[in-house]
């Protein structure tokens, strides 16, 4: 086994490079034509050629209807019929979809139930680390550090998703101009598959296996095995040699288990870290996250200069070659019919580097800068100078078909109207599209819905998410891709608030108060009623995160007001409220504050009606809406709501907006539509300002610019603090009168009449 041969080869299940073929593969990564037996498309992917084939199946290069390239790995039916294969495949694909890192190639589609199960990942055209080192020799220390940082970040995300890669090696790290990409994170890799069971194949891995893998101690293989392999990878990148040498597999295994690595030539500054990764005892190795932190000061900032120039040239050539195929240049259905892509060489590079753009999602690096060049014309060095155009978009991530669809649909309309009005502007810098992704209000699928937006480099900012739980799930995807997420309904405080050890939020902009503040405002609204002395506060546990944050705000505010509430907490499944509410009434409760969701508020309303409670009743955002009126019926009368939105029809300033909405949608705007219209218009105004100043459309810096806005929209004013939270109140009191909500006014942000109360 030569030092380079095995490394160049991909593992048996590599989705980018293919289930490895024959030792005599002519050109690694080259695209082979489709065979007559190959399908012309799989699911939504039009197949362009073969990237590799082997015992397990075939890997194709495919293209989506949107023109995105993908590596589509199809597993042979006989493999798929092995016991448990499909269940494991499904489980691992689900886990892989939770992997969120700009340095890990995302899974973009899969069907474990197809006769031949398939999985698609974003396509990265760059050469593998193995190919680059073979062609150009060892990398300089700075490149190795950046490589280590990015791969460690990717592994950290893989491990966080509950996966172990198990095959980290030079063939599974692809180089793009803006940084490396880890591919093939453990999907459908046979359980217990190790070099020992794979010795009859072309094996690229033995030099990169951890001792516990070499000994096939399946039970002991966990994230530390990947860290060991990362240590090998870094040593290899720095010296051009695997640290346990090459040669016969069994000897290599033996050395891995028993010998010290040969780290001669590893730069001094990396030696300790590499040595720690290569500890024989898995428990003694640092975690991937720790490695990321140790290498963090060197994270790539300067784009392509993270690699030596000859390697960058190789990337460019490879990319151009891959993309110059006629079929790829043909316009597929659904891609901008008015503007057939005519790509310059630079265009090829950009498109490839960003496989790049696809994975990084328009992050902060070269790929993005490149796309901006394109938009403004750039300097094309090819024959046909018109570069490919990016369609710029505003995204909407909303619950359009789940439990909060009333709110989600209202938000989509607001965003749509704002974008349409932007496109109607005479002096608009460019035309925008609205990209809508329905997260169905389901945390299990929300990340996938978010990725449809975050991986589209044309998306500049997103309105969403609708709900707390989906917002939490999608946050990492937005953070990793540097895409601003503007919400008018998700009040979960930790979307913006961070502890001291964490980097501050630079992703979420929240145009409503977070729940603890909303709770404060709600309690301060109670203090407007000066006769109230003994509020009863009930926390209902259907959604602990919401009810707890609300009740903590309420507790704080009543403390400020000098009132001692009577607190009760009820379990989530309780349907019978009379006993608890009866006890609260008996203890002298003169106002009721409900900290909980809609269903509990309705139960409480009915029970308070039956108990003939006469005091005022208050609750917050999660019970606010038409459903409460409908379900509580007559018992809804006399309730007060602290909600983060207003009725646009009640505002003179919104008359133009209301009229436009009626014209466009045939109805008055619902709650949350006006606020959505405002924040999207605020973002569009900022983009227009930038264009006027000569700046191209970009995600970068947009959150920071929006955060500093002092914006007045049709629904009111918006200003934000440093963590991206609304600063100026934002809770409005609504009363139920005659079966409808009536706006009372803004909730106070300080206790009313504090002095008297203390008496």
């Amino acid at each position: 086994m030569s030092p380079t041969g095995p490394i160049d080869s991909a593992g048996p299940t590599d989705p980018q490079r293919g289930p490895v073929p024959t030792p005599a593969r002519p050109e690694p990564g080259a695209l082979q034509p489709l065979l007559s037996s190959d399908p012309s498309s799989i699911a939504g992917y039009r197949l362009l050629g073969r990237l590799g084939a082997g015992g397990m199946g075939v890997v194709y290069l495919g293209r989506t209807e949107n023109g995105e390239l993908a590596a589509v790995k199809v597993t042979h039916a006989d493999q798929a019929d092995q016991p448990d294969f499909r269940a494991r495949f499904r489980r691992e694909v689900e886990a892989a979809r939770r992997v969120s890192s700009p340095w890990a190639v995302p899974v973009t589609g899969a069907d474990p139930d197809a006769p031949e199960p398939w999985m698609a990942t974003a396509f990265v055209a760059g050469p593998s680390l193995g190919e680059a080192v073979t062609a150009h020799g060892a990398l300089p220390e700075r490149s190795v550090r950046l490589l280590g940082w990015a791969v460690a970040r990717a592994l950290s995300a893989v491990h966080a998703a509950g996966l172990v890669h198990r095959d980290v090696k030079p063939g599974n790290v692809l180089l793009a101009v803006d940084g490396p990409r880890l591919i093939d994170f453990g999907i459908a890799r046979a359980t217990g598959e190790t070099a020992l069971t794979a010795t009859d194949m072309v094996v690229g891995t033995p030099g990169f296996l951890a001792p516990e893998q070499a000994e096939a101690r399946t039970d002991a293989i966990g994230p530390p095995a990947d860290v060991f392999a990362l240590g090998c990878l870094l040593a290899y990148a720095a010296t051009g040699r695997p640290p346990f040498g090459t040669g016969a597999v069994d000897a290599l295994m033996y050395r891995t288990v028993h010998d010290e690595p040969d780290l001669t030539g590893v730069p001094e500054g990396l030696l300790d870290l590499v040595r720690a990764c290569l500890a024989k005892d898995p428990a003694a190795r640092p975690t991937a996250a720790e490695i990321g932190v140790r290498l963090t000061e060197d994270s790539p900032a300067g784009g392509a200069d993270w690699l030596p120039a000859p390697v960058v040239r190789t990337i460019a050539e490879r990319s151009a070659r891959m993309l110059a195929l006629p079929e790829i240049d043909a316009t597929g259905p659904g891609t901008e019919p008015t503007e057939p892509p005519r790509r310059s060489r630079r265009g090829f590079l950009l498109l490839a580097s960003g496989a790049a753009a696809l994975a990084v999602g328009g992050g902060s690096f070269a790929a993005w800068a490149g796309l901006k060049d394109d938009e403004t014309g750039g300097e094309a060095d090819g024959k046909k100078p018109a570069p490919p155009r990016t369609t710029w978009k505003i995204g909407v991530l909303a619950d359009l078909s789940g439990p909060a669809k009333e709110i989600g649909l209202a938000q989509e309309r607001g965003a749509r109207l704002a974008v349409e009005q932007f496109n109607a502007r005479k002096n608009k810098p460019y035309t925008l599209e609205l990209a809508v992704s329905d997260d169905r209000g389901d945390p299990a699928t929300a990340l996938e819905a978010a990725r449809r937006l975050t991986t589209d480099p044309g998306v500049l900012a997103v309105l969403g998410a609708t709900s707390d739980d989906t917002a939490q799930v999608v946050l990492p995807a937005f953070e990793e891709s540097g895409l601003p997420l503007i919400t008018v309904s998700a009040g979960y405080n930790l979307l913006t608030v961070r502890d001291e050890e964490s980097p501050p939020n630079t992703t979420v902009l929240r145009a409503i108060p977070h729940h603890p503040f909303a709770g404060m405002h709600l309690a301060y609204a109670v203090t407007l009623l000066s006769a109230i002395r003994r509020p009863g506060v009930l926390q209902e546990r259907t959604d602990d995160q919401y009810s707890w944050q609300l009740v903590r705000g309420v507790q704080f505010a009543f403390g400020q007001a000098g009132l001692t509430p009577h607190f009760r907490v009820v379990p989530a499944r309780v349907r019978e409220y009379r006993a608890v509410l009866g006890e609260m009434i008996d203890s002298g409760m003169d106002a009721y504050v409900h900290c909980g969701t809609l269903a509990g508020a309705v139960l409480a309303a009915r029970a308070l009606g039956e108990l003939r409670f006469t005091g005022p009743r208050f609750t917050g955002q999660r019970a606010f809406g038409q459903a409460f009126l409908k379900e509580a019926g007559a018992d809804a009368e006399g309730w007060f709501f602290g909600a983060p939105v207003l009725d646009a029809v009640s505002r003179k300033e919104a008359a133009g907006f209301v009229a436009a909405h009626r014209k466009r949608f045939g109805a008055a705007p619902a709650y949350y539509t006006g606020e959505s219209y405002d924040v999207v218009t605020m973002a569009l105004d900022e983009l227009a300002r930038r264009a006027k100043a000569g700046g191209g459309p970009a995600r970068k810096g947009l959150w920071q610019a929006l955060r500093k806005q002092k914006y007045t929209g049709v629904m009111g004013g918006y200003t934000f603090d440093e963590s991206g939270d609304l600063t100026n109140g934002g809770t409005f009191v609504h009363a139920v009168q005659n079966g409808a909500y009536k706006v009372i006014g803004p909730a106070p942000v300080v206790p009313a009449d504090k002095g008297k109360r203390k008496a």
Partner: protein
Amino acid sequence: MLGGLVLTGCSDGGDDGKKPDGMGSTSTSAAPTKASPTTPDPTTASPPPTALPFVPDPKRAPKTEADARRIALAVVAGPDAWGPDYVKRTPHLSDPAYWPVLGADCSWGTGTRPATVLYSVTAYSEIPADGALGNLRVAATVTVHRTEADADWEMAGTLEEALRCPDQKLRDGERISDLISLGNPFGVGGNFTAHDSLGERGTYLNDAVKGKQFYGWYQSRIGQVTVATVVKGAPGYSEQEGSGTVGTVTAQVQALVTMLQRAEDELEVQS
């Protein structure tokens, strides 16, 4: 002095048992997952389960005080479950009638066990003072309710206590203050070990010990059984391992999860 306090605490039955040692918090919720023995096999992808993988056997469900006593004593965490440095305190187990109640004045006193509770026991452990390290006192409580709904209400009641009384007097010379209590049902906040969990955290003040210490109470529910662990901080200790301080949260979570495992073993269908 410390010994005297311990003696007093235990003999009056009002020591770190049930309520008088509450704790919990936002970070609590995440912690139990990390130490959980049910951590998924890392060699396979394991998306978080959507429900606790626990199938109770109705035939094994405790129905009498005797059933409940047997289970509670089998489940409750002694020093072995906390870690090698921990030893039993004397007496090690609470009196069967021990049932502390938080009064209207936010002071803990003795009460009568409600009819919805079949049995409850608290096991006291400690790390004796050693040089710069103070006497670290911990306890584990198991409460067996008649029904799951009763246990649900106990969880709610614990959350209620921190809202009603963020500052509580445990006994003369011992207080806890600034209590914050957060519940996490299964699947929320990293709780993948129990049907329900809560964490209560605050500050522990002991007249005999200089300065403020931490206080933490973790409580989880599986079926009709609740288990809780409490740690009252002492000099030289901190919740998370710090520079120069010994961390306690790992032991606390381990004791909690050990009890959950034992409770599952006692209650689930035997294959």
